[in-house]
């Protein structure tokens, strides 16, 4: 529990560096696939990652953050090693489905301009739909969860509505909303609204009775009860809902961004998936994953700030 300075050993003697070396050694095997494997690119990528992690190891102060990053990077290396072995080196996996990692990095580098535009477009839509959803779902969830009677029926109604697949409501959105972009935003909105609402309502219903009694005995008015008592007390559950909403948003981005858009990460993935371009599909998935990871990182920061009273 005590925070000491991190020892040199703990800083630099880590399994992840071993994995990096394994990855490099693997490159010595001859390629077994007919197509260009672009091993060069994957070596550059891994080396950049290694430099990054060495820098982090050198400068980070908190052992916990260092562990986190090392764990994630180790995972990435393991993944890269298996991927390289399975594709370029042993050709176990069908080449048309499983491009070697180098090819993916090469493609990503070639498409980098489009990718940045895609990230911007997608973030625009996601931020709009997602925050609109949170801003409505959280207060509504607090209110409905608190008025237990509506709350109970609302659980069912919201589950009912939350299970409608987007293929159903997208045509209605196109018919009723003013612009195609607003339909995309609506899809993201619906994707995140129901999880956020469900998480909030469930959080409210699970607030400890002692806390509620204590607040009641202070005779707090409704707004205070909802926002100063129930909201902080159910924050962990609200975060589950919001996090879940984020995942569903990105899952449905492929549906959301096929409505009148020509850019966006979902568009990129869906479009190339329809065309069967697996290298680019993987590029798209990796980019989505990285974007999600970055957002989750800030989410976690926010969460641990808001829940700092929990120890």
């Amino acid at each position, binding site marked *: 529990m005590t925070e000491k300075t991190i020892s040199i050993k703990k800083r630099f003697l880590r399994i992840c560096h071993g994995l990096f070396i394994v990855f490099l050694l693997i490159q010595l095997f001859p390629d077994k696939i007919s197509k260009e494997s672009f091993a060069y690119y994957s070596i550059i990528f891994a080396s950049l990652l290694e430099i990054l992690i060495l820098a982090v190891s050198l400068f980070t102060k908190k052992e916990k953050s260092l562990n986190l990053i090392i764990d994630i990077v180790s995972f990435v290396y393991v993944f890269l090693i298996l991927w390289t072995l399975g594709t370029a080196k042993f050709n176990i996996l069908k080449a048309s489905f499983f491009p070697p990692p180098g090819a993916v990095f090469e493609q990503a580098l070639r498409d980098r301009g489009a990718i940045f535009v895609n990230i911007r477009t997608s973030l625009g839509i996601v931020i709009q739909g997602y925050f609109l959803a949170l801003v409505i779902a959280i207060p509504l969830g607090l209110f409905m969860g608190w008025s237990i009677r509506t709350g109970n029926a609302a659980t069912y109604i919201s589950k009912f509505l939350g299970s409608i697949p987007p293929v159903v409501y997208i045509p209605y959105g196109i018919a009723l909303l003013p612009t195609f972009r607003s339909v995309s935003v609506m899809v993201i909105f619906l994707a995140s609204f129901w999880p956020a609402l469900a998480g909030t309502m469930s959080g409210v219903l699970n607030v400890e009775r*002692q*806390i509620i*009694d*204590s*607040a*009641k*005995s*202070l*005779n*707090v*008015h409704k707004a*205070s009860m909802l926002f*100063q*008592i129930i909201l*902080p*007390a159910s924050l962990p559950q609200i975060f589950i809902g919001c996090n879940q909403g984020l995942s569903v948003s990105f899952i449905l981005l492929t549906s959301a961004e096929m409505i009148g858009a020509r850019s966006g990460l979902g568009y990129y993935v869906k479009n190339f998936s329809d065309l069967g371009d697996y290298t680019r599909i993987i590029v798209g998935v990796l980019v989505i994953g990285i974007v999600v990871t970055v957002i989750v990182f800030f989410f976690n920061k926010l969460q641990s700030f808001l*829940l*700092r*009273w*929990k*120890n």
Partner: protein
Amino acid sequence: MMNKIEVDNLSVSYNEGNKRFTALTGISFTVQAGEFISIIGSSGCGKSTLLNVLGGLIAPSSGRVAIDGIPVAGPGKNRSMVFQHYSLFPWMTARNNVVFGIKHAATKLSGKEIVSRANSFLEKVGLENFKDKFPAQLSGGMKQRVAIARALAMDTEILLMDEPFGAVDAKNRTLLQELLLKLWEGNSDDTIFPIGENVSQPPRERKTVVFITHDIDEAILLSDRIIMFANSPGRIFKELEVHFPRPRSRSSLVQTEEYTKLRNELLTLFYKDFGSNI
């Protein structure tokens, strides 16, 4: 004097799955405005249940509970509570817990006044160095003192306190007892300004206090009347008036003969109830 609190043939039972458990039965008593009563009784006899009913948190199963002649339908601005479980809001610092209480009791004070009132009460309970800590960073006794500071700072007509000094050491307990009595009597020093009134005004009316304790000496020292509860099901067993003049001095009181007599009477009664139930 008028009846501040009237309890008439109160019964409370809890749902337990399909069964019902009777926690209190046939409770009747009244509390005068300005009266300080203590409730003692063995563990599980329904003291906390009664306090929750008075606080408006539990509805009676039968019988009538009225405050100022009006049946209790829920919590009210005229009451503040100290729970047996301390029940602070874990996401608020000690100070904010007190501020939150004051804010909801007295909207007339400005934000600044509320904070300085909160500070002053935290100092009075000996927590001047712990105002900015969250409950999870406080010791058991400290949490309890924050809860006491909150209830006292709210300056309500009625104080409902459930073993408020149970987790506090002997010294702090003495201090807190004195603080409680001073506030009850309406004696305000410069830092404890009454809510919504000017310090220059005449001393205000006494508060009405319902005080649960396990400590017989504490009950005698503080109260005008002691109500003893018996167990299974919870019911009133005996009421005793405590006639010592106020202000009472702990040390001199202990030496009087009446004190020893009252104390022995209470102990005997207590153990009698005991014998009949265990």
